[in-house]
């Protein structure tokens, strides 16, 4: 940019020059311009060449940098150029032009003692016009070089990438000739080119490397997935890829079994080194080998040159096979070391961070492979176990086949015992090849045959030890008799039976149920042949199964009975719940009673029912609700007399009465008997409906089936009767309450009307009293004697007080009657307070009290019933004056948000805490003490509270006995949201 500006300036100068005669001076200028043009062209050509080189050889840094160096030398007129990289604090010469000795920079440390080092470290151009003038202290390295190389002017420009200096371009001249600004600028451009070339290659290499790594990783993963049972191929692949990616010469993979390290895989290992490794492994973890050290320390071991490691034990072999740099990375699974990967190379060159990362990734993959194989093996072992278990189960099942028929029958008929027992004896006979099998059960003191194989011949007797089956039961053990014909002495009864039925060998097994003998399984053979142990064992299972079947059926039956019971009680509860709900939710007696009787009939499995209400006065039962059969028969009737029929009879005893069959002559006498019989009714039950020991009705139910109903049903009916009693009682009470309410309402209205007209009547004479008295006081009738003024004033005050009381009574009556309405309108709080003050001023003055008001001047116009607010304030302030002997009474007003708060405070007697709670609610219209409390404060406070509430506000008090009171009245500024005026 600066250059271009300079050039433009030069051009305009040339234009001016053209206007006059050319001079020598002009020629010189022209020559300067031509020179510059040539330089610019040179520079462009150089840049183009460099860019071509960059794009043509992406991967070959030195060749590109050589082009850069060459152009820099030419264009900047220097003898030497070197492009240097700072690699980990060490100079690396990437390209140079000029003296070959410059290559000797290679490997020396980057310090501020050299021009290039300083350019790199300070990240700025360092220009030394004359080396001889350099201080030795500052540029020690450069000084030394000057002696060596003999150059005079030097310059170094840093290679900056993202603000970081990665190297420098160093140029020098052998004679003293400082670099011009333009030359410096040019060198910076070359520095940029060099950076681009280096960066390009770096990026390319990085991408390439990443690609190689990914390829290797995916290859390993592929191998892992291909060989789930064997880690060897995985290790082989890992060894090979690790060796390649780490630029190593050899790689080996090791396994560690917790005690010893085993060589697992080798890649491109020389025969000599392989032999050394085989000799050194297996070995325990230790420091003598890098692999053993990595496993011991559970961390990466990286040794740039193993020959210099004092603890290394394989030095000889390493030297012989040329191993120098070693990297060993442990394999760790769940915190346990399981092996290691070790890479080595023949020259002492450290592995890069990236290479270490690659090997670490490989160890992870090796761990995955190991784990895979472990899981696979485990899975296979499990599979084998399952297969074995399966085989065992199959065998067991086969062994069970003999008894399966019985089991099937048991499962098939959980409720019916007989088929099970039949199948049992059949199977027993077949499997033991006997003539006959019996199953006998204990019944009292006898054994009863419940199942047998053949259908003829009896075998039943009392339980005693004289026969085989009897003895099995008595002794509670298996009795086996080989030949009954020769056992007559021991089994007299048994021998007798054997002779009759024609058998010789007999076997009886006891059946145990809950520790008791409940029966026996008895088998007989017509010829003498002992039952084998195996047969007895099998028969024992049959005996067990018989017991199970018997027990099953018993449990099932029990369960069914329980379920039935439960269902019935649930139904009962539901019905009662429904009835209860009907009783509590409906006041219509007929609805409730119909619900009750219909549920009662339904639940008791009856055909119809009626609820009667008993009228004590006429001693008759009146039908209130009916359902089902005989509804018409009873409804047509004008009440059932006491003593008549089933209900009437119940009324005499107050106990449930049953008539199992009304068709039986003399069993039932009633005027409706014929009607009932015609309707098909046969059985009747009546239960009393009692309330507090008194008969209030009856519940009568009927059934077409003759016969008594169960005690359960009677009990249920009594429950329903109790509910009916409640319903009847409720209905009666409700009617009573309704009637009372009506009466009360009328009385209340009368009272309100009376009070309203009374107060009107009282006002007229009061108008006379107050009017004339005031005029007398105002001396309308002439001057009054001074002595009269006080009593006349007293008359006036008393009259006003009386008026207030009358007003309060009237208001309260209107409020109680619900006829009080507010007359809403806009009003000024100041006016209202002033009006209250005016009306009470005299009263306060008479008692010598200070009476003040404090109303803010800027209060907005309020909306409400001004008259009622004034009345409230008059009540509060009037009380305050009344209960204050000395001091002051104040009405203060404050606006708190949307509320106008009136505070009436006094220095009076105060209020006891226990009275404060009820202060505003003491008076009720019905309160008989109203007259005696007439002079009290409560009436006014009650009204004040009502008015405050009607305004949407409230009143409260703060007080302490002896320390005065503060009454508060808070009402909305604009009641009912009346828009501000």
């Amino acid at each position, binding site marked *: 940019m600066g250059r271009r500006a300079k050039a433009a300036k030069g051009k305009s100068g040339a234009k001016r020059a053209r206007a006059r005669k050319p001079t020598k001076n002009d020629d010189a200028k022209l020559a300067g311009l031509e020179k510059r043009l040539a330089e610019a062209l040179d520079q462009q050509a150089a840049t183009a060449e460099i860019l071509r080189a960059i794009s043509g050889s992406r991967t070959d840094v030195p060749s590109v940098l050589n082009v850069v160096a060459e152009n820099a030398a030419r264009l900047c007129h220097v003898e030497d150029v070197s492009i240097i990289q700072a690699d980990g604090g060490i100079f690396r010469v990437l390209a140079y032009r000029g003296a070959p000795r410059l290559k000797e920079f290679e490997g020396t440390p980057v310090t501020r003692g050299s021009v290039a080092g300083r350019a790199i470290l300070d990240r700025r151009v360092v220009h030394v016009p004359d080396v001889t003038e350099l201080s030795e202290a500052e540029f020690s390295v450069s000084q030394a070089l000057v002696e060596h190389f003999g150059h005079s002017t030097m310059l170094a420009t840093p290679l900056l990438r993202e603000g970081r200096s990665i190297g420098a371009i160093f140029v020098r001249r052998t004679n003293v000739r400082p670099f011009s600004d333009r030359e410096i600028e040019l060198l910076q451009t070359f520095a940029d080119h060099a950076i681009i070339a280096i960066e390009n290659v770096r990026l390319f290499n990085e991408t390439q490397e990443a690609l190689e790594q990914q390829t290797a990783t995916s290859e390993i993963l592929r191998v892992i997935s291909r060989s789930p049972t064997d880690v060897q191929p995985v290790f082989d692949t890992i060894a090979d890829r690790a060796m390649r990616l780490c630029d190593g010469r050899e790689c080996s993979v090791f396994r560690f079994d917790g005690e010893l390290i085993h060589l697992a895989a080798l890649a491109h290992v020389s025969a000599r080194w392989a032999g050394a490794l085989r000799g050194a492994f297996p070995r325990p973890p230790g420091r003598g080998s890098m692999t053993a050290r990595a496993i011991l320390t559970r961390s990466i071991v990286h040794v740039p040159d193993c020959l210099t490691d004092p603890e290394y034990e394989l030095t000889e072999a390493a030297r012989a096979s040329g191993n120098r740099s070693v990297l060993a990375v442990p394999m760790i699974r769940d915190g346990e070391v399981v092996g290691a990967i070790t890479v080595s190379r023949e020259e002492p060159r450290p592995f890069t961070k990236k290479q270490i990362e690659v090997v670490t990734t490989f160890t992870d993959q090796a761990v995955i492979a190991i784990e895979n194989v472990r899981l696979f093996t485990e899975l296979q072992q499990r599979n084998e176990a399952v297969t074995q278990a399966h085989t065992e189960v199959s065998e067991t099942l086969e062994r069970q086949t003999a008894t399966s028929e019985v089991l099937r029958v048991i499962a098939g008929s959980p409720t019916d015992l007989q088929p099970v027992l039949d199948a049992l004896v059949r199977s027993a006979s077949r499997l033991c090849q006997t003539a006959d099998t019996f199953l006998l059960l204990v019944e009292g003191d006898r054994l009863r045959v419940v199942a047998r194989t053949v259908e003829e011949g009896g075998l039943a007797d009392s339980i005693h030890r004289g026969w085989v089956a009897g003895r099995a039961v008595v002794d509670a053990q298996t009795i086996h008799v080989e030949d009954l014909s020769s056992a007559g002495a021991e089994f007299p009864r048994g021998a007798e039976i054997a002779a009759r039925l024609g058998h010789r060998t007999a076997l009886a097994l006891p059946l145990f149920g809950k520790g008791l003998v409940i029966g026996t399984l008895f088998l007989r053979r017509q010829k003498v042949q002992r039952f084998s142990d195996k047969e007895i064992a099998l028969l024992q299972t049959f005996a067990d199964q018989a017991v199970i079947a018997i027990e099953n059926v018993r449990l099932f039956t029990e369960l069914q009975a329980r379920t039935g019971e439960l269902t019935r009680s649930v139904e009962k509860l539901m019905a009662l719940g429904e009835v209860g709900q009907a009783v509590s939710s409906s006041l219509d007696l007929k609805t409730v009673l119909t619900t009750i009787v219909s549920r009662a009939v339904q639940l008791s499995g009856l055909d119809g029912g009626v609820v009667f209400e008993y009228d004590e006065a006429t001693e008759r039962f009146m039908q209130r609700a009916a359902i089902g059969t005989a509804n018409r028969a009873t409804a047509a009737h004008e009440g059932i007399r006491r003593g008549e029929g089933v209900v009437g009879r119940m009324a005499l005893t107050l106990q449930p009465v049953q008539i199992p069959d009304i068709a039986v002559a003399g069993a039932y006498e009633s005027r409706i008997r014929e009607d009932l019989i015609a309707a098909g009714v046969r059985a009747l039950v009546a239960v009393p409906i009692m309330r507090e020991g008194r008969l209030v009705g009856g519940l009568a139910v009927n059934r077409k089936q003759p016969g008594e109903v169960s005690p359960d049903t009677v009990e249920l009916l009594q429950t329903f009767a109790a509910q009916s009693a409640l319903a009847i009682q409720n209905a009666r009470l409700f009617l009573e309450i309704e009637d009372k309410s009506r009466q009360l309402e009328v009385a209340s209205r009368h009272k309100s009307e009376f009070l309203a007209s009374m107060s009107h009547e009282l006002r007229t004479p009061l*108008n006379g009293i107050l009017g004339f008295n*005031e005029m007398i006081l105002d001396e*309308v009738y002439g001057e009054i004697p001074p002595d009269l003024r006080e009593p006349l004033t007293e008359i006036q005050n008393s009259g006003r007080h009386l008026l207030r009381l009358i007003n309060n009574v009237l208001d309260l009556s209107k409020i109680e009657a619900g006829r009080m309405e507010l007359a809403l309108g806009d009003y000024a709080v100041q006016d209202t307070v002033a009006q209250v003050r005016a009306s009470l001023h005299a009263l306060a003055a008479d008692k010598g009290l200070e009476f003040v008001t404090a109303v803010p001047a800027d209060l907005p116009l309020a909306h409400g019933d001004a008259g009622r607010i004034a009345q409230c304030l008059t009540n509060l302030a009037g009380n305050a004056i009344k209960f204050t002997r000395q001091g002051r009474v104040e009405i203060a007003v404050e606006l708190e948000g949307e509320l106008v708060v009136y505070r009436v405070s006094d220095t009076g007697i105060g209020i006891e805490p226990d009275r404060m709670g009820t202060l505003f609610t003491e008076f009720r219209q019905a309160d008989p003490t109203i007259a005696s409390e007439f002079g009290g404060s409560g009436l006014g406070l009650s009204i004040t509270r009502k008015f405050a509430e009607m305004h949407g506000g409230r009143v409260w008090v703060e007080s302490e006995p002896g320390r005065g009171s503060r009454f508060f009245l808070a009402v909305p500024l604009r009641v009912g949201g009346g828009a501000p005026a």
Partner: protein
Amino acid sequence: MSARTILSVEDNEMNRKIVRDLLRRTSYRLIEAHDGEAGVALAHEQRPDLILMDVQLPKLSGIDAMRALRQAPGTAHTPIIAMTSFALSGDEQRAKDAGATAYLAKPYSPRDLLAMIRRLVPEE
């Protein structure tokens, strides 16, 4: 100009006497009527400067009397002070709706009444 005339319509003698006594020392001229009908008739005849109207009156109620007065051209704008001893909320509004200029609840202060009269019809 002759003295200002005030018509008092009131059925109660005692109340009439209060007004009578009150105005005795003033320059106002007082005329009286005992019921609503008579009040309206007298107003038409005498054209008073101000009317004191009791609300509870025999024959014709004060409310109806005021409505009648407001409809007649001669008394349409005559100031009327309505007075009632019922003092129910809404009474004032009802009286004003019927045409009352001002409202006074009984028992009233004669002092206040006189002030109100003087404000509406200043003494000559």
